């Protein structure tokens, strides 16, 4: 009983301390926070908004996705900083699309500024996320730092705490009030992701003195995407894939640590079933370019089909249907990408005739970047089939070629 009341006491003290720190942080730094608004010029209403914070007297950090519509069509939007009741114009100085960051030039702020922390917190340490959820006003949300996000290509802090839309671009700070990262995304209950301070510091480091013309950002984004796909695909292309069997197909067991894999099989209920075993691996993160345009995804799917109980032609009919429709995994509109061009042929892969389809579409604004869809299905001798496919978005021709070659050589019928 005594122990229990002691524990309770400790818990209350901890909560009290926590609340105390939150209050302190908020009251100290409230002035250095702002609501970043993208205002539509015709209607003079905001079309999107997020949070931002001062890291230097004239520099504000926010998310790229908060301001992307402005960069897309600067002639129809205006970028506004709302601090309390005052509204001021903002300019974009630098962006990092890969880490979803943007650096803005804002009117000089004379009060206290946010400073970046020396290092990341320890796992379990308290962090406080600041921002403007759903435009309801600036809030502080306490959370717990839980290490770097696992199985992720992009470094993200995993914070257990509630992030809501509108808090994007706001800072997450440690108990001392130093910035450990920028709020960026949430997935379900209390799972929040924060861009680490190293990426923020790097962006501040390369920021130019004056704001570049809006047209220059397209080229900048293109370079960042090209560099990112190079970093992502180089290890995949360089490593020897560890292969395993899926039926009589040979498929990679793991491709890269940042890709998560899933398996699925349909258990045969009746005699005339087409049995299938599927494996798929995907990078679960995509790069935000605009509301309808995402890139940077990699997805691979493998399927083994066995229809021993079916007549050959019947098996083949259903087998062929499975490869009739392949889709690209990333969202895009006709404004962003060209239509797909496809080449299809029967190719000899590891001594087995295989129907191979290869489709490409180009990015209209970012030349040299493509979405690629590949599907291969072994021509069946008996009622067995093997389908392999991959889809890449935002890759260079060289990398797409190299991955296709590697795929055609290794992912084969044994």
């Amino acid at each position, binding site marked *: 009983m005594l122990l229990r009341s002691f524990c309770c006491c400790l818990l209350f003290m901890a909560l009290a301390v926590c609340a105390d720190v939150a209050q302190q942080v908020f009251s100290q730094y409230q002035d250095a926070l702002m609501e970043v608004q993208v205002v539509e010029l015709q209607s003079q209403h905001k079309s999107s908004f997020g949070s931002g914070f001062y890291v230097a007297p004239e520099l504000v950090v926010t998310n790229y996705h908060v301001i992307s519509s402005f960069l897309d069509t600067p002639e129809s939007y205006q970028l506004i900083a709302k601090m309390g009741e005052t509204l001021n114009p903002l300019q974009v100085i630098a962006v990092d699309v890969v880490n979803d960051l943007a650096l803005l030039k804002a009117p000089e702020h004379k009060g206290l500024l946010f400073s970046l922390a020396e290092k990341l917190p320890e796992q379990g340490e308290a962090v406080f996320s600041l921002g403007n959820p759903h435009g309801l006003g600036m809030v502080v949300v306490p959370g717990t730092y839980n290490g770097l996000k696992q199985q992720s290509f992009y470094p993200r802090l995993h914070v257990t705490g509630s992030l809501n839309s509108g808090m994007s671009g706001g800072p997450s700070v440690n108990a001392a009030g130093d910035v450990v990262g920028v709020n960026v995304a949430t997935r379900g209950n209390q799972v929040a992701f924060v861009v680490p301070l190293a990426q923020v510091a790097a962006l501040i480091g390369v920021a130019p003195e004056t704001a570049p013309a809006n047209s220059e950002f397209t080229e900048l984004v293109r370079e960042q995407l090209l560099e990112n796909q190079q970093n992502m695909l180089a290890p995949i292309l360089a490593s020897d894939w560890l292969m395993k069997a899926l039926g009589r197909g040979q498929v990679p067991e793991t491709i890269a640590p940042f890709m998560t894999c899933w398996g699925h099989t349909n258990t045969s209920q009746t005699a005339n079933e087409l049995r299938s075993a599927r494996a798929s691996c995907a990078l679960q993160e995509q790069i935000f370019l605009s509301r309808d345009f995402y890139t940077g995804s990699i997805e691979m799917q493998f399927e083994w089909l066995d229809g021993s109980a079916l007549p050959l032609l019947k098996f083949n009919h259903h087998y062929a249907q499975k490869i009739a429709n392949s889709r690209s995994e990333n969202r895009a509109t006709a404004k962003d990408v060209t239509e*797909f061009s*496809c*080449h299809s042929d*029967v190719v000899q892969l590891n001594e087995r005739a295989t129907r191979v389809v290869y489709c490409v579409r180009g990015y209209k604004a970012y030349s040299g970047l493509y979405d690629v*869809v590949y599907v291969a299905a072994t021509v069946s001798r008996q009622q067995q089939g093997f389908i392999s496919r991959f889809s890449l978005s935002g890759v260079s021709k060289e990398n797409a070629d190299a991955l296709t070659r590697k795929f*055609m050589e290794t992912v084969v019928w044994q």
Partner: protein
Amino acid sequence: MAIIIELLNSQGQSTGIHKFSQSDIRIGRSYDNDVILLDPHSCAEHAILSRDEHGQWLLRDLNSANGTLNSQGQRVEMVPIAAQGQTFTLGKQRLRILFSDTVVAPTLPVATGWQSLSWLASLPLLITLLVLVSADFAYNTWLSAIGENAERWHRQLVLIPFILMLFLLWPAFLALLARFRSYEPHFRQQVSLTFGVLLLWLLWEKLQLWLGFNFSNNLLFIALQAIIPTLILAALFWYGFKLAGVQRKAVQLVLTLLLTSSYWSIPYLQSITPTLQPSYQAELLPAAFLITTPTSTEAFLIQTETLYQQVNQ
């Protein structure tokens, strides 16, 4: 010169013709008239058509209840008949006045086009076609049923007669068209033609699957894919209109081209809005159907180079 009174129905079609040589013609509902009207809105003695001493015909209203209207709908008391084919309305009865020197339309020839297609009327042919088309539908039903459906696939065969009936709409339309134009409807020939064309189409689909599997990028195959469906459709419309009694070759040709072009114009209209997902050839058959040598990985990758040139344009 004799005068002719033609009674017209509400569509302006003739329902009766009277020819007179006397100089007074009485028109009305009572039985002592020369032209007896059935229309209850006309009077017993409604109007009189008479010739004066100069040979000029005059239509005079006999103070009727609903009057005599000219072709503009104006009420007239007395009106000279100056031109051929003037129409009047007595009550609700329309009539047209002509003179015997009116030139008649040229003689319509008896339709002859169908004679070369008389073999299409053969009943054994029609039955064979129906059986073959039904067999193909049944085969496809069987093909698509797997799992639990595989045991019950034959239940779906009940649908086949209804699907076949849908294909009767086109021959029925052409037969009606021919009937309206006072030609032989040739319904059985039209049905045989439609199902013959349908059978050809189904056979072509099977051949296309095999050709596509073996000769994916062969230029001849790509050309055939465009030509054969066009020819099959053109045959359907050309012979269909011929059987329906379309006499003029130019009309037959224009109608055929217009309807056949739908095969091209509909996909063209759809292609105006860009499709962002890939479409490609994916014919796949068992290994026994493969007669060509598969290409190598190298050759395939060289071919993909051109895709990048296409999307970069």
